[in-house]
Each structure stands twice: as structure tokens, then as C-alpha cells.
């Protein structure tokens, strides 16, 4: 406790303290180290002329070669159109899943009988291996656009429903009892208490789910996608340039991060009471 404040100063405290605080500057320094180590190691392994390298550039291009390949990704592989195509699939699949999971989650959280009806199915589906849904949806819906959206919708639905249910379960019983003693009908209690109080939790679940969706997009576009981020990766892996794989991964991370910020904005706009001081 005594030197707790002292170690808050820099990254180079002499001791490792359990739950010790690290200053902002310290966090940045410490956080950048592993990234630099990886970039350094990567540069070392890919230094020099193509023939003299430890690892062939066909397998692992150098960081600079990856950056240089951006114009070809943008113009030849039509990155922007691929982003739009992938985003559209994610949005459609997510929208369909959320529209179905939302009322079902509320109804399951509100009424014991609805819960008993669907809970076994929900538990069962939460153990399904998501990648296995790709061949499954292909055999059911072909290899067109429908299959991709159905796959994403199914994956999102399986992910979202238990989280929605958990949000409704998280509403303290005291709110319900208060509403009852204030004369609320069953319907009013669902609408004004269970739904209203669980909404921030439900939005948070959607935020988490949407982030996961950008990882599913690769699976969705593994087969016969005429355009999309996943398709670029598949093409780059088969025909090259390999640089595109690294760039697309980076692009997906950036998109996922930016959309996550959008969800935070949305949450602040919809639920100002969480922020008010």
C-alpha cells in the first residue's frame, strides 16, 4: 500500500504488484513493446533480397511489402466494394437474428412457460460448432447470397438469444414487485419494467454480437462469394498476393473497432441516464 502511489508513475516499477496501478504513459509504453517485438522479428525474418531470406516472401512478405500492396488491394481487389458487400451481409444477418431473438428473449425472460418451451433448444444450439453451420446452410440454401445471410443470421441468433435472456433475468425482482404494488398489469410490467430496464443490457449484447460477426464473415465467404473481405483472403491465399491477407485482417480489425465505437455512441444516445452525472 505504501508505495502504491510511487509505482503509478512509470512503466519501470521495481516490483510486480498485485492489481498495481499503471500510469497512462506507462500503459502506452508497455502496450507497444509486444507490437514492436513482433514487427521487429517479422522484419528480421524478411530482411534482404528475396533469395537470401530465411523465409520466402511467397510465404511471409515483409511489413513494407504488405504496406506497398495496399494500392493493388484497393484497385485490383476492389477493397471498398468488398467492404460494402461484407458489411451488407453482416447487417442483414444481424438484423434478421436480432429481430427474431429480441421478442423471443423478452418473452422467455418474462414468462416461465415460454422459457421452458425454448430453453432446451437454446442450450443445445449454444454448443453447436458454428463453422459446421457453413456446409449445413450450403446444403439447405445453396451457395448463393441467401446461404451467406442465413449462416450469419443463424450464428448471430445462437449468440444473441442467451445474452438477451440474461439481460432480462438481470432485472431485479424489486422493480417488478414495485410495479405490482403500483397496480401494473402483466403487460405493463413486461413493457415498463422487464423491457425498459433490460434494454441497456440488450444493446450491450448486440454490440458484443456485432463484433463477433466480423469474425464470422470469413466463414460466410469461404465458398463462392463474388465479392467480400473473406473472398479477398481466400483468393490471396490461393493465387496471391499474400500481402492482401495481412492487410484484410487489419482492415477487419479496424472496421470492427470503428463499429464498436458506433455502438457506444448509440448506447449513449439511447440511454443518457447511464451517463448523467
Amino acid at each position, binding site marked *: 500500500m505504501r508505495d502504491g502511489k510511487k509505482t503509478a508513475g512509470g512503466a519501470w516499477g521495481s516490483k510486480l504488484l498485485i492489481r498495481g496501478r499503471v500510469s497512462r504513459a506507462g500503459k502506452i509504453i508497455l502496450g507497444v513493446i509486444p507490437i514492436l517485438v513482433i514487427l521487429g522479428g517479422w522484419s528480421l525474418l524478411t530482411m534482404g533480397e528475396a533469395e537470401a531470406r530465411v523465409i520466402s516472401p511467397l510465404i511471409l512478405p515483409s511489413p513494407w511489402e504488405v504496406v506497398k500492396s495496399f494500392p493493388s488491394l484497393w484497385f485490383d481487389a476492389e477493397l471498398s466494394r468488398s467492404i460494402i458487400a461484407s458489411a451488407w451481409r453482416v447487417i442483414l444477418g444481424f438484423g434478421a437474428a436480432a429481430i427474431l431473438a429480441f421478442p423471443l428473449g423478452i418473452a422467455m425472460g418474462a414468462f416461465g412457460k415460454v422459457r421452458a418451451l425454448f430453453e432446451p433448444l437454446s442450450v443445445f444450439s449454444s454448443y453447436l460448432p458454428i463453422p459446421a453451420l457453413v456446409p449445413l446452410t450450403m446444403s439447405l440454401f445453396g451457395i448463393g447470397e441467401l446461404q451467406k445471410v442465413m449462416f450469419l443470421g443463424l450464428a448471430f441468433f445462437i449468440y444473441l438469444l442467451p445474452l438477451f435472456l440474461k439481460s432480462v433475468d438481470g432485472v*431485479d425482482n424489486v422493480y417488478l*414487485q*414495485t410495479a405490482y404494488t403500483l397496480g401494473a398489469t402483466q403487460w405493463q410490467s413486461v413493457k415498463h419494467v422487464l423491457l425498459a430496464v433490460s434494454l441497456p443490457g440488450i444493446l450491450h449484447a448486440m454490440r458484443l454480437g456485432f463484433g463477433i460477426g466480423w469474425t464470422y464473415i470469413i466463414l460466410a465467404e469461404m465458398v463462392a462469394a463474388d465479392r467480400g473481405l473473406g473472398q479477398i483472403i481466400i483468393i490471396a491465399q490461393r493465387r496471391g498476393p499474400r500481402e492482401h491477407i495481412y492487410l484484410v485482417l487489419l482492415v477487419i480489425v479496424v472496421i470492427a473497432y470503428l463499429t464498436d465505437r458506433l455502438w457506444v455512441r448509440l448506447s449513449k444516445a439511447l440511454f443518457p441516464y447511464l451517463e448523467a452525472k
Partner: protein
Amino acid sequence: MSTPEAASRPALPVVEFRDVSKIFNPGTPKAFTALEHLSFSIEDFPNRGEFIGIVGPSGCGKSTFLNLLAGFREIYPPSSGEILVRGKSIKGPGIDRGMVFQKYSSFPHLTVLQNVRFGMDINRKRLGLEEKEIEASARDWIRRVGLDGHEGKYPHQLSGGQQQRVAIARCLALKPRILLMDEPFSALDEPTRLDMQRLLVNIWAEVEATVFLVTHSITEAVYLGDRVWIFCRPPGRIYKEFRDVPLPQPGESPLEAQKRPEFQAVVQRVADEFRSVDRTMGARSGPNGAVVPAAQAPGSKGG
């Protein structure tokens, strides 16, 4: 515990318990009798309700009693017996019985004003309320509980005491005949608790409701109550009733009133009786917090 003189009055009792028992998990090895053969009736005084302070060791059925009277589906109906409010058997929760909980219960997504309006808003049609009346009444109650200026705040911006003020205002805005309070001030610090007691004394004179207040503070029960009930177990029942309890005077500070020797004497009597409940219950914590083994505790049933 029933009061025979109630029968001679024309007005129906505001609350009547007729031989009410509540057994949880009946017929299983986990069966537990929370309340047994509880009977009493509380008269409906024309201008003011009675204030009943309820104390008792934990697990003695105090909360079961309040929840039964509230009519919550988790627990209502009782295993046997009948609960009547103004002569009618209750069917479930109703706006004639308001409740204030120990847990903070202000809806987090609503402002103070919206919280206080809540009951009136959802009953707008049934009670035939106009928007103007609702707004005026809500603002009036916010003022009466001393929260004017906080109308636009959200619950998480309020202190514990302020949250309980919201709960009280929200509840009383519906003019309930009966007010159930389950340890409403237990989570508050001592000065806030005294403030809340003062508030309750001041507004209770106007609301004319019969109040059942469960508390772990004997001082609070004696200070606020017209009568004090000590519950005991097992099984839960009313062990002792005190009716000659000094009444709080509106205007006098709770701390001053609670320092007076007459007041202290009553608290002492109730406390002594409370301890004798503990002894009849067997292994319970003694006066100094030490656990008294059942074998050493006198087995005599008091009172």
C-alpha cells in the same frame, strides 16, 4: 391477537388476518412453516391509520407476513387462512397496498419526476386521471418528501436516502390505504435514517394510511409505531404486542425524542422481551453477540 372490540364497530377492519399459515415446500423434506395461525385485525380509524412497528429475529416470518399482505404471486395465497383488506379477501397485489423496500427500487431509466408519476401513469385510465392532475400531484409529493429541485435527476445520481424518498413519494402518490415498509431505512447511515424517520412522522399525519413497518431497530419501531409487534419462530407468529408506546410528535427531532427517559424505558422493555424470544428459540445469539447453546438456554416459553 384479534381485537374483539373491532366487531362492535360498524366500519370494517382495514386489515384482517384469519388464522393465516404459510408453509413453504409443503409435503417435502424441505417443508418450512414461515407463519402459523396468524390472526389479528386492525381497525380503520376515520382520520388516521395505525402505525405498527414489527421487530423480531431473522427468519421469524416478518417479511413473509408483509409479502403475503402485499399479495405477491411468489408467495400468495397462504397455505391456509384468509387475508382481508376492508372486509374483502385480497386477490393479489393492488394499489390499496403500497410497498417500500429495503433495496433501492427507483426505475433507473426514469427521472425522479417520472418515477413518482409511474403509478399514476400506468393507472391513468383506471383512475380517470388527467395529465394536469398527475403532474401536479407528482410535483406536490416530490416537494413533500423534500426532493424539490431534483425532479430531473436519475436514480443513480441520488443518495440512498433520496432514493427512499422517491420510493415513498411514488407509493403515497396513489393514496394507498395500507403502506408496507420492509426495512426501508436499513441500508442508510444513522443521520439519514433519523431524517427519514422525521419525514415519515411529518407526512404520515397527512396520508391516513395504516402502516406496517418491519425494522431491525427496536428504537425505530418504538419511535414510529403506535404498537410494536415482536415476531418469533419457529414457526413464525406474533409473540408479543406493545400498545402503550410513546407517540412521536411532529416537529420534535427524532434524536431528542429518542433520548427521553420514558422513551428509553419502553425501548428497554421491548428489548428485554426480544431477548426472551431469542432464548425460547434455543441456540440464538445472546445479548453480547455470543451464541448461547440450546441446552443452556432456558426452555420456558415466555409471555
